């Protein structure tokens, strides 16, 4: 056996467990989703081939439209806010100062807690009239605002809680990226009389572009289909009030498990993934920043 062949065989052997696992538990479910989408599944083991009817169903489905809107609004608010907040935090804790360890840990700490517990915590803090936040806001005359019970506020509340939960993680990613910005370059710019804004705009920002790209793609995927789109809503509002926080993922789950429409849920799944692939593809294309492979 040649060395080349031996190396290739070894490589396949090393890859086998993960490759098979991903195939079984990610790729096959994906393919299945495409398959089941063409069936009417009643939840009692009966399948009936119905062609494209699950897809046709989507066009008259107002709830789906509403869920897509909820997810869209969530994405366009959560992603930029989380980006700015976590970037600002990273800049804030970039340079050493006394107690920096605790400060960094504090920002990350919410991310350590499970979303189930996060949901519980905020439900408790946001209880109508008697919750800590209501008590805090009472002097301002806002004591009986229902943050989770008012449709116009619930989604915003959900965004804020998501940012609080994820800012520490994204901050760490930014910190890692900032480490690649050579100090000398910045110092040189400072000596040349560049203001701090100019240093940021012309030295730091260009070098951070790959990191920023990673953060945006990552948080977009998370916002559309990630656990924050399900676990958090599930414990916080169950999609209410008046469907104001019914994300697409929650809607799919509802269709599959509350209404037993597995076929329809599968069809929806394929559409969501298609949208996601399109969005990330677009981001790759526009930014030309998506270079996972650097060698």
């Amino acid at each position, binding site marked *: 056996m040649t060395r*080349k062949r031996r190396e290739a065989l070894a490589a396949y052997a090393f890859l086998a467990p993960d490759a098979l696992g991903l195939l079984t538990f990610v790729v096959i479910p994906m393919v299945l989703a495409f398959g089941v989408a063409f069936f009417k599944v009643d939840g009692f083991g009966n399948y009936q081939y119905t062609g494209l009817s699950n897809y046709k169903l989507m066009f008259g489905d107002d709830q789906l439209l509403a869920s897509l809107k909820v997810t869209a609004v969530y994405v366009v608010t959560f992603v930029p806010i989380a980006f700015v907040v976590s970037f600002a935090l990273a800049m804030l804790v970039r340079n050493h100062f006394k107690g920096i360890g*605790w400060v960094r840990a504090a920002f990350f700490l919410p991310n350590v807690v499970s979303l189930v517990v996060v949901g*519980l915590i905020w439900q408790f803090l946001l209880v109508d009239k008697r919750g800590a936040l209501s008590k805090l806001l009472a002097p301002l005359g806002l004591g009986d605002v229902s943050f989770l019970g008012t449709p116009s506020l619930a989604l915003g509340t959900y965004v804020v809680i998501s940012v609080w939960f994820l800012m520490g993680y994204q901050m760490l990613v930014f910190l890692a990226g900032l480490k690649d910005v050579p100090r000398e370059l910045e110092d040189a710019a400072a000596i040349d009389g560049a203001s701090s804004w100019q240093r940021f705009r012309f030295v730091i920002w260009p070098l951070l572009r790959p990191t920023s790209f990673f953060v945006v793609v990552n948080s977009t995927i998370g916002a559309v289909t990630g656990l924050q789109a399900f676990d958090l809503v599930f414990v916080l509002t169950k999609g209410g009030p008046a469907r104001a926080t019914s994300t697409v993922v929650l809607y799919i789950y509802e269709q599959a498990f509350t209404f037993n429409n597995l076929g329809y849920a599968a069809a929806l799944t394929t559409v969501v993934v298609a949208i996601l692939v399109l969005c990330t593809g677009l981001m790759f294309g526009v930014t030309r920043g998506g270079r996972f492979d650097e060698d």
Partner: protein
Amino acid sequence: MRIKFLPILAHVLAIIAVLPLLWIVISALKPAEDVFDFGWPSSWTLGNLQYVLLKIPMPRFMLNSAIVSITVTVVALFFHSMAAYALARLRFPGRGLIFSGIMSTLLVSLPVILVPLFLVAKQLGLLDSYAGLIVPSIFHAFGIFLLRQYYLNIPRELEEAADLDGCGYWRRYWSVILPLSRPALASLSVLFFLANWNAFLWPLTITRNPDLRVIQLGVSGMQGQYASAWNLILAAAVIAAIPTVVVFVAGQRRLVDAMKTTGLK
């Protein structure tokens, strides 16, 4: 002047960030009737924590979660490091294709494939078992990606020295690469443990045997059974969060370092 101002701001913001968590811990130590009192509690009690630990199978839930999280973490790190080693340091036909294939699975998250994944798990006989909790949670491209980045940075000479001694690929991986990747593995183990300890959706879907309930299901179930007892629910939440905070504090430095060294950007 600003140099003095920014650290103070950072400290203030940090306090604000943890305030909700702190408030929960304090509330869990209040007697039931004071739980909504806004002020400092007039008396403290460990009764809530005691009740949750003794009257509810909380220890059982935690044991289940520990079994699942630790097994997944260990097996996943092993598999991922093997795959990452091949992708980073071996040459073979189809490497680029396999790598982008693996990376593209990052687009697919659990809620989206929940239904078909459930069907696959059913076909494999994984319903309602530890295996069902563990096996599907092992495989995730994120770890492969990070480890591969890390391995790309290991100097080739180190490995080649081993080669001269006539080592096969397995020996190279086992006695050179694996020991060298200890810091990366340690930090990833923190991330993996946290993710699995905190898992909710998959355990909810795959198990129904009460003996298999993991901690997050236990806490979530508390809300139904003890709806009116916020003091108990919060106590359960605090207990569920303690292991994660401990693991995080213990592994915190590694986490920040690893994010840098693995070149995550």
